[in-house]
């Protein structure tokens, strides 16, 4: 556990530093009369048209789904990677099969067009 105490201290100090910087900026910032048209969204100088809660491309969801699959795969690879020397050929063949199965999944996603951006 020894290494996690410094990490914890570091994390706390990091959060405090970020908040402190924002706080200093709030204290020092310029105040005074301002123009109301500063408070509209930027749309190249025109008045904003419609809502900004627009519909966006479903492809983003698809990317997120495929990402979760492959990210979990990568996580499984790490414990295997650092003990390969100890486990030898058995581990190698096991993991090759695992990666091959996932590669099949990749080919499936490829053929289905999930990796294609329209």
């Amino acid at each position, binding site marked *: 556990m020894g290494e996690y105490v410094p990490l914890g201290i570091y994390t706390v100090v990091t959060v405090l530093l970020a908040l402190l910087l924002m706080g200093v900026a709030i204290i020092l910032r310029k105040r005074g009369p301002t123009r109301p048209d500063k408070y509209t969204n*930027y749309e190249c100088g025109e008045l904003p048209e419609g809502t900004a809660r627009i519909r966006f491309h479903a492809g983003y969801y698809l990317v997120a789904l495929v990402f979760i699959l492959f990210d979990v795969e990568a996580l499984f690879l790490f414990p295997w990677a650092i003990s390969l020397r100890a486990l030898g050929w058995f581990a190698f063949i096991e993991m090759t099969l695992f990666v091959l199965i996932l590669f099949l999944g990749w080919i499936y996603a490829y053929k289905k067009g999930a990796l294609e951006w329209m």
Partner: protein
Amino acid sequence: MAQPIFQTLWKTGVVFLGALTAAAYLVLAERKFAGYFQERYGPNRVGPFGLLQPLADAVKLLLKEEVIFPQASRGLYLAAPVIIGVAALLPLAVIPFSEHFYIADLPVAVLYLLAVGSLSTYGVLLGGWSSNSKYALLGGLRSAAQMVSYEIAMALALVGVALMAQSLSLVKIVQAQQSLWFLIPQILGFVVFLIAAFAETNRLPFDLPEAESELVAGYHTEYSAFKFAMFFVGEYIHLFIVGCLVTVLYLGGWYGPWKPGPHWFFLKTFLVLFFMIWVRWTYPRFRFDQLMRFSWKVLIPVALLNLLLTSLWMAL
């Protein structure tokens, strides 16, 4: 071996000061180099060679008027820059700058890096969404999709390094490179990691999230004053960290031709960063569909191939 608390505290202070200075001067270096690449001078008014420019910029950004849009989701809008700042600084905790100078030598440092590295996606996405502006939303979405796609390639490249070193601790990874840098046996992984790093730091040729010519400034369009500075500094700290990581993972960290020490570490980091700046001012931007296709159809298969070859080599 754990360190006493006061030691952690002064190291934390040194790392913060170093990282903020590095980020400030990276901005200046980028502007200076950009100037010379384009046959102009770059900033040269504040101090000799413009060396005080970062200070002037910081003061200016601190004193700027605060603009919070009434239509923005206030809480998230204010939280996003803080998340970016924190997420940018966190990975520094595990980077070994020399054999003895690091804050924590986690046994799972590589996993920690991946975990903290993806935190900044939240900042970007929240910032883009909560500003309630179309450009910001599009920039945030693009950024999330891009960072997520390249994270897999990056993680798979890192598995190769873990295989070679048989450890996830960054100190052990550097020590494993004493005789041979991983750059040579892991050349495929190195290329994948470097390309993914460009995408993770939102830099040209992959700077789609803030493509000025189409999205104004992407996810931080509606941010001003110090909140903007947090995004900006976060980005450059991120860049600095990528330079450190390439050095630690592939270029042998603090080892050099003679007498190992932090000077080798910083020399290599600087060279990597110079390379990244050089690329930025040399190549045009990709289209978004090209960017996504490149990650999924080229980088990930190449990273898997690298993994297969490395594990075969290690099992032999």
